[in-house]
């Protein structure tokens, strides 16, 4: 297809490189340097989509980030991405895009029926209807509405692209590379400051690329190019195009999204798709420019109506005519710039200026060029459905209330300029309270809140001369304070046209008898009547208006609609604009890729994985792993086709009869040193610690200040002032912080130091009646007899030349030892244990068997210590010292904690001795009671008792102390189970604790 709208000798595109692409299944071509929007316009394609609510035809309105219309579904390298702004997407070979929100096609869209029904669908219509019959909302209406809404289609495939993060520091971060950005970057760089200059577009230069100005005897564009090439050479400067600073966060942290690969057919090897920069800047210069705002008139959403600055950009950057018979509708000088560019390129525009008789250099120039201008004239309505065909125009009275006779003139596009809105988003995000500037009818930043300075058009300065002057000055002042260096730079001479005052006019009145839709928000179909209705119904706060009408809540975030919406509210409410206020700007400035925000922490890397030094042995020996926090632990070691249940039973049984070994490396370990260690432990734990002899371990429970059990574990006195504490795997980090808190803040007088040694030690629990015999083999040089190493004893020993620590402690309830060696020797230790254990029929056991063993012994673990139980509940009240104070003791006096029927741990056995009891079931008195059925307690842990060969569970039961021997029901409605059970002691095996002492 030929490019009927492409000019030959203008634009910054590379005409040597043709690029072919597909839109809605049709082949087109464009050039390197095009955006999808410019390439489509070059091919005369104006219809790109349908609007959100009424499915009205949508074309291109802007040429960049402010685009409300041209949102497409993109296909790139076998993947698809929804909601891509065609005005931002650079063209690449093989690009494919489709229109969204239309069915079956953008040309014939069934949803457009909404447009004919639009009088029944005013703002908030859905709040007033779809209520009958009652169940129809969810079943009928809502699914219909859901299907109609939404823009593009999200692929449910995994994203193949990679995203990176980068952290950076700089002296000055400069957002935007227009005149103020370039001037300030140059000045600051010359002063030796570390500068980052970010430009969201592919090309640097901002407005200089399209405006007809001279700086230092060069065209604006050439001046920009020379500054950029100089900046590129400077080592203290980083300049980034395709990089948008989208968020200004606390303490001068800004975040930038760099599109590394979106402009390429596919991402290069080892390159990310996007890179997210966290930048901590000493100072921030906001030179983000301004966005042209529309004038509101009838059918102003028809394809072919667009911002005059966009039309100019398509012309000057891309060499594309947005029309051959253009109408320019303006209330200020900017429209003339566009008209003149048309004229220079052989196209005759008509200018409608709402002003009565403005005078200015540019108007004179236009007149001299022979451009047809109508003053005090406005566009009343665009005509044409899928494309502008003509315009109804009329003269307008000075008070802008009365329209003259309506004439219809032919045109194929309407370029509209309603003056400029400073892009204050970043300044506002920093916490800056913006203020309304009557001169320009827009908000500008107020007093700096963080270290930010707003320059140029973003600050409401629209003259190039002033922009450059203030930018050079500000950047010089700011940078020399940081670098203590100053390089004199002479401010270049500027030639620009003197501008005349804009007209405070933003909305064309409706002619009598006409009911044109006049849109404010183009994507969300919010029209003037919608705002009027909201106000009429009492939704008067601007936030109510916004929420009721959805004004400014589309993917363009109201960049072209917010201010006109405010103007309308202020007019109807008879308030000044600042009194109406405006919604606060929050990051992101424009929608930002979730993949980029997340970066590399995806898939297996979404959280760290911790492995013990013996992990590879477990892997080789068919361990099936379980996540314990971020640790991986063997759950069981599979032999043949064993199930979890079979394997864990085998492993547990072997511990009870022979000997087993379990990897306990993941337990938290904390070294405690210092002369006051015993006193410290005495305050931390509920039991007494002052008299623990050297070489002895003790079990302890620690509470939170609210009396709830925080953690349990053993602590061993290694030497006079040295203790070794163990914690549960889950609480290791919390316990360390807890100890540090009390040492540093509460009892700084205690001379104690704590440090985590979890990673330093590998641990193996050797448990079972034959464990001592095995231990003697492992430590032939040491005496590990019951006399020399009794229960809760500790010794240092020699594992064939490797230093080891032996703790005689037991979680399984069997005769057991825990051996620790330095992590590096963990695997050696483990293999030695397995090797020498063969004659004792040793088997490794995993967490599942460990659970079985501890459950039938009545030892508590995480499922009982669930952050809601006190020592009494866990039958640990014997460990509460009456003689001393400790953390959380005072809370144990609470009424609930001392209630006579306080919950307490019990054992539960099914009456039939066969039915396994699902964990998470509840205990009730009457399984047939009406709901809500009062619950007496819950099953915290279940196992198959290998000792008794029947199911056994632990439960936390109300009045558990007095319930032993009672018969209750276990209920698991989720699993449809009712099991009659008997309550027994939680110590189901070896209640006297003889084995551990044997």
């Amino acid at each position: 297809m030929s490019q009927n709208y492409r000019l030959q000798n203008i634009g910054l595109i590379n005409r040597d490189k043709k690029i072919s692409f597909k839109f809605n299944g049709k082949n087109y071509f464009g050039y390197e340097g095009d955006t999808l929007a410019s390439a489509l316009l070059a091919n005369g394609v104006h219809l790109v989509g349908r609007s959100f609510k009424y499915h009205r035809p949508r074309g291109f309105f802007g040429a960049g980030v402010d685009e409300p219309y041209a949102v497409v579904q993109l296909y790139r390298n076998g993947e698809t991405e929804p909601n891509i702004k065609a005005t931002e997407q650079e063209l690449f070979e093989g690009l494919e895009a489709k229109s969204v929100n239309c069915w079956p096609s953008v040309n014939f869209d069934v949803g457009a029926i909404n447009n004919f029904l639009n009088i029944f669908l005013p703002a908030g219509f859905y709040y007033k209807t779809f209520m009958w019959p009652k169940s129809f909302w969810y079943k009928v209406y809502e699914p219909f509405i859901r299907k109609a809404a939404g823009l593009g289609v999200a692929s449910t495939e995994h994203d193949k692209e990679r995203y990176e993060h980068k952290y950076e520091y700089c002296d000055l971060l400069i957002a935007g590379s227009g005149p103020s950005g370039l001037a300030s970057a140059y000045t600051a760089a010359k002063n030796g400051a570390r500068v980052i200059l970010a430009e969201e577009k592919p090309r640097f230069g901002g407005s200089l690329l399209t405006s007809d100005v001279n700086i230092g005897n060069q065209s604006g564009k050439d001046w920009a190019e020379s500054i950029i090439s100089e900046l590129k050479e400077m080592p203290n400067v980083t300049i980034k195009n395709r990089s948008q600073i989208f968020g200004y966060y606390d303490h001068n942290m800004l975040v930038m999204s760099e599109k590394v690969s979106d402009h390429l057919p596919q991402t290069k090897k080892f390159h990310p798709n996007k890179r997210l920069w966290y930048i901590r800047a000493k100072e921030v210069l906001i030179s983000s420019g301004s966005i042209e705002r529309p004038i509101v008139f009838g059918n102003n959403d028809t394809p072919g109506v667009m911002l005059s600055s966009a039309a100019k950009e398509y012309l000057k950057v891309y060499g594309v005519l947005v029309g051959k018979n253009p109408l320019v509708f303006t209330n200020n000088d900017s429209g003339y710039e566009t008209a003149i560019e048309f004229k220079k390129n052989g196209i005759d525009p008509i200018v409608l200026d709402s002003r009565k008789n403005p005078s200015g250099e540019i108007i004179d120039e236009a007149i001299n060029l022979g451009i047809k201008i109508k003053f005090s004239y406005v566009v009343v309505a665009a005509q044409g459905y899928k494309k502008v065909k003509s315009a109804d125009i009329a003269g307008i009275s000075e008070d802008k209330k009365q329209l003259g006779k309506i004439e219809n003139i032919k045109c194929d596009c309407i370029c509209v300029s309603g003056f400029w809105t400073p892009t204050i988003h970043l300044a506002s995000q920093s916490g800056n309270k913006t203020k309304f500037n009557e001169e320009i009818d827009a908000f500008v930043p107020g007093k700096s809140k963080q270290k930010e300075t707003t320059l140029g058009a973003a600050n409401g300065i629209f003259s190039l001369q002033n922009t450059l002057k203030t930018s050079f000055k500000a950047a010089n002042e700011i940078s020399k304070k940081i670098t203590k260096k100053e390089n004199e730079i002479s401010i270049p001479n500027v030639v620009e046209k003197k501008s005349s005052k804009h007209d405070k006019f933003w909305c064309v009145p409706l002619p009598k008898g006409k009911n044109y839709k006049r849109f404010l928000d183009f994507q969300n179909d919010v029209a003037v009547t919608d705002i009027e209705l909201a106000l009429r119904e009492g939704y008067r706060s601007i936030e109510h208006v916004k929420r009721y009408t959805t004004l400014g809540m589309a993917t363009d975030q109201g960049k072209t609609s917010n201010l006109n919406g405010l103007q309308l509210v202020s007019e109807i409410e008879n308030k000044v604009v600042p009194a109406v206020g405006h919604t606060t700007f929050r990051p992101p400035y424009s929608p930002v890729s979730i993949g980029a925000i997340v970066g590399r922490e995806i898939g297996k890397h979404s959280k760290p994985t911790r492995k013990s030094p013996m992990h590879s042995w477990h892997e080789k020996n068919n361990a099936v792993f379980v996540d314990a926090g971020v640790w991986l632990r063997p759950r069981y070691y599979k032999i043949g086709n064993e199930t979890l249940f079979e394997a864990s039973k085998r492993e547990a049984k072997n511990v009870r009869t022979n000997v087993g070994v379990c990897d306990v490396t993941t337990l938290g370990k904390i070294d405690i040193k210092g002369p006051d260690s015993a006193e410290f432990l005495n305050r931390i734990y509920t039991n007494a610690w002052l008299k623990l002899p050297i070489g002895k371990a003790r079990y302890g429970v620690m509470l939170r200040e609210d009396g709830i059990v925080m953690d349990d574990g053993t602590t061993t006195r290694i030497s006079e002032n040295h203790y070794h504490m163990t914690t549960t795997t889950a609480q290791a980090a919390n316990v360390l912080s807890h100890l540090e808190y009390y040492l540093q803040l509460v009892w700084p007088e205690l001379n104690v130091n704590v440090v985590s040694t979890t990673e330093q030690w590998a641990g193996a629990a050797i448990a079972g009646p034959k464990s001592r015999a095995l231990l003697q083999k492992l430590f032939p040089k040491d005496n590990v007899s019951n006399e020399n190493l009794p229960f809760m004893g500790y010794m240092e020993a020699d594992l064939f030349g490797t230093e080891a620590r032996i703790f005689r402690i037991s979680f399984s309830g069997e005769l057991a030892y825990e051996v620790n060696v330095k992590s590096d020797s963990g695997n050696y230790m483990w293999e030695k244990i397995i090797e020498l254990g063969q004659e004792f029929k040793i088997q490794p056991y995993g967490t599942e068997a460990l659970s079985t063993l501890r459950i039938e012994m009545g030892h508590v673990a995480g499922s009982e210590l669930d952050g809601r139980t006190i020592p009494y509940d866990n039958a640990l009240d014997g460990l509460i010292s009456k003689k001393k104070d400790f953390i959380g003791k005072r809370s144990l006096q609470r009424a609930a904690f001392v209630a006579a029927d306080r919950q307490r741990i019990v054992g539960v056995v099914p009456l039939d001795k066969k039915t396994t009891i699902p964990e998470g079931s509840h205990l009730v008195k009457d399984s047939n009671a009406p709901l809500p059925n009062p619950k007496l307690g819950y099953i915290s842990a279940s196992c198959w008792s290998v000792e008794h060969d029947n199911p056994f569970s632990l439960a936390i039961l109300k009045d558990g102390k007095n319930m032993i021997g009672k018969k209750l029901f276990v209920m698991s409605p989720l699993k449809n189970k009712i099991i009659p059970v008997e309550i027994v002691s939680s110590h189901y095996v070896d209640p006297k604790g003889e084995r551990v002492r044997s």
Partner: protein
Amino acid sequence: MLHIKCPHCGLRSQNEFSYGGDASVKRPELNQEISDKDWDNFVYNRKSLRGKHWELWQHLSGCRQWIKVERDTATHEIFNTLKADEEIS
């Protein structure tokens, strides 16, 4: 992201720290009689006002020291930081 000046290590990003709540809460002395009300005030009740707030942070991924930070809860501006043993004036 907050930028917190650790009195031991210097300015560091917030992600090196963990939060520890109101720094003005003083744990009652051990072994002392204390009323329910005073104990509840220690364990549960907080002023948590808008504006300047002395609070605890721990430089978890740094020196592991607990520090006191004076921060505005409305603007997040940080005015002052102290070591654990320095008194809030």
